[in-house]
């Protein structure tokens, strides 16, 4: 069996002070295999972006460990850390805010090469940037334009091109398509899948559009209030959800069909419905086929019959 490209063990990220503590990420563990897409879904504010930002070291973690390419991020030398960042890239939720408006696309893409001292020869560098633009479905004429001269979809592709400029092994894509219209979403998703196939890239794909997440992901993790509630193979999770929060989430997805929308019944979720006792141990338990669900022993027994 191949080694995971990313392993996250008991990751914690808390914000605020003692009397106003937000446990944005609270004991989260998962892994991503090379060339695989793990979808990360869950309600707004459950800690998806914070998980991504903590993995790339944008936030100091409160606890836990992050292994990238088999190496623990804490035990790396300065030089290795640099490499770590190069091979692990993030596409941010807001495509407008993440591109410098005063730089041309060429300069934006060149910046990564400068930081990491890559392709120092002018001609070689230009060639690399043109190739990069073409790989995301833009062309070399676009290189001299500024971000505001592009449509939302094109701008998002510049963000992707920038991430790719480091030749990463894993990209954390935080809602990369939410702001785009449907036909451009389809373009970007097709493109991301093609690049994945060509380069053996892995994605941690954060999103709330569950139809798209199901389509793009090999596995999916469902997060609720800083914890993972359920994780498993994409179609397995959709066809055989165990956790009531997952069921509630799936029942909320609007379908592009007016007739089924009139009939759709949403099931609610309320934590108190579990009726857990103080002494019950809650953890991810295996329901077979690497399908893990956060529950008590009692629930495990009643859900598996």
């Amino acid at each position, binding site marked *: 069996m191949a080694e995971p490209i990313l392993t996250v063990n008991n990751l914690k990220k808390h914000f605020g002070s003692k009397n*106003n503590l937000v446990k944005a990420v609270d004991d989260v563990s998962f892994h991503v295999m090379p060339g695989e897409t793990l979808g990360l*879904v*869950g*309600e*707004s*504010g*459950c800690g998806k*972006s914070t998980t991504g930002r903590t993995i790339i070291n944008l936030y100091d973690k409160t606890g836990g460990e992050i292994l990238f390419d088999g190496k623990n991020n804490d035990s790396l030398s300065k030089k290795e850390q640099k490499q770590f960042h190069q091979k692990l890239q993030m596409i941010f*939720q*807001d495509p*407008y*805010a993440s591109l410098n408006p005063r730089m041309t696309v060429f300069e934006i893409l060149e910046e990564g090469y400068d930081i990491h001292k890559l392709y120092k020869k002018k001609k070689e560098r230009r060639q690399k940037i043109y190739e990069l633009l073409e790989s995301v479905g833009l062309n070399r004429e676009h290189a001299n334009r500024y971000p505001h001269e592009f*449509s*939302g*979809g094109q701008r998002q592709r510049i963000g992707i091109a920038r991430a790719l400029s480091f030749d990463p092994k894993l990209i954390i894509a935080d*809602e990369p398509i*939410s*702001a*785009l*219209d*449907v*036909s*451009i*979403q*389809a*373009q970007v*998703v*097709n493109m991301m*899948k093609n690049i994945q196939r060509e380069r053996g890239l892995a994605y941690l794909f954060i999103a*709330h*559009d*569950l*139809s*798209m997440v*199901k*389509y793009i992901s090999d596995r999916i993790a469902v997060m609720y209030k800083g914890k993972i509630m359920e994780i498993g193979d994409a179609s397995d999770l*959709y066809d055989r959800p165990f956790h009531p929060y997952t069921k*509630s*989430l799936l029942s*909320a*997805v*609007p*379908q*592009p*069909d*007016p*007739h*089924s*929308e009139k009939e759709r019944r*949403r099931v609610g*979720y309320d934590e108190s419905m579990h009726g857990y006792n103080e002494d019950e141990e809650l953890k991810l338990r295996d329901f077979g086929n690497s399908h893990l669900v956060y529950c008590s022993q009692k629930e495990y027994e009643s859900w598996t019959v």
Partner: protein
Amino acid sequence: MMNEPILQMKNLEVDFKTYAGTVKAVRNVSFDVYKGETLAIVGESGSGKSVTNQAIMKLLPQPPAIYAGGEILFGETNLLEKSEKQMEKIRGNEISMIFQDPMTSLNPTMKIGKQITEVMRKHTKISLGDAKKRALELMQLVGIPSPENRLNQYPHEFSGGMRQRVVIAIALAADPKLLIADEPTTALDVTIQAQILEVMKDIQKHSQTSIIFITHDLGVVANVADRVAVMYAGEIVEIGTVDDIFYNPQHPYTWGLLGSMPDMNADKKEELRTIPGSPPNLVHPPAGDAFAARNPHAMKIDFEKSPPMFEVAENHYAKTWRLHPDAPRTQIPEVIRNRYIQYNGGDQ
């Protein structure tokens, strides 16, 4: 549904003066909004959805924007003739708007609670105490957990989705006659989205609010819309009831749009459908049908002459030459026909 319209847009034209020339962003757009209905507007990025609706609020900066033609009747009066002072009374009061980008409508240096109460106090005579109470209620209504603590936080301490819910709470604060929602739920997860849609529907039922709902999520359209307008390159190319648009669409752009959405049963190995090519440059809009260059079934006339709106059925219109009596009969694509058959048990 078809009572008297509260808003009538007639032949609206909006231009932008830019260095590259005059951008014809909104071209001859007409539609009505009836009391208590939800009209969804869908269409490609850059097709003029936001500009059309910002024109209703008269929010476009002039220059570069020019209201080049048409009128927008709200009740008896043409909004385009109102002074800025008169518009200020209407905005956020009779008509309110939820903007596409929540960060631009929130002040990053002001506490959330204060931002909500300020809006209320600007438009209604309400004591600070009552405004605070109402702000708390609204935060609860849009599903913000422990709102008491949250009122004292700044926008950057909120997640993306929570910020958007605050913006929605602010828009609802004034109890408007017409609510224009520009991609209000795009940044939200499905549970909160469903909750917000229910809140909006409830408020609509109570106060007969009319809603213009701009979105690219066709699932949301199917859920909220009574009628749907489809925009392409600054024009409305098709308008009809939600069933007309989903089960009997007539414009090739509408077909492309409906075809590119994966549903929950989409096959992972197949590529998603896209609409090849890109929209026309609106500095020089094409002479014929603006979608012709991307339409695999385009006829000669599509490149030469802009089609009129053809009536498909009562309340259903589409702007495409394929509906001309002399045009050769073309079929609605199979994916879309299948859906029609699946839900209506027959062909059309």
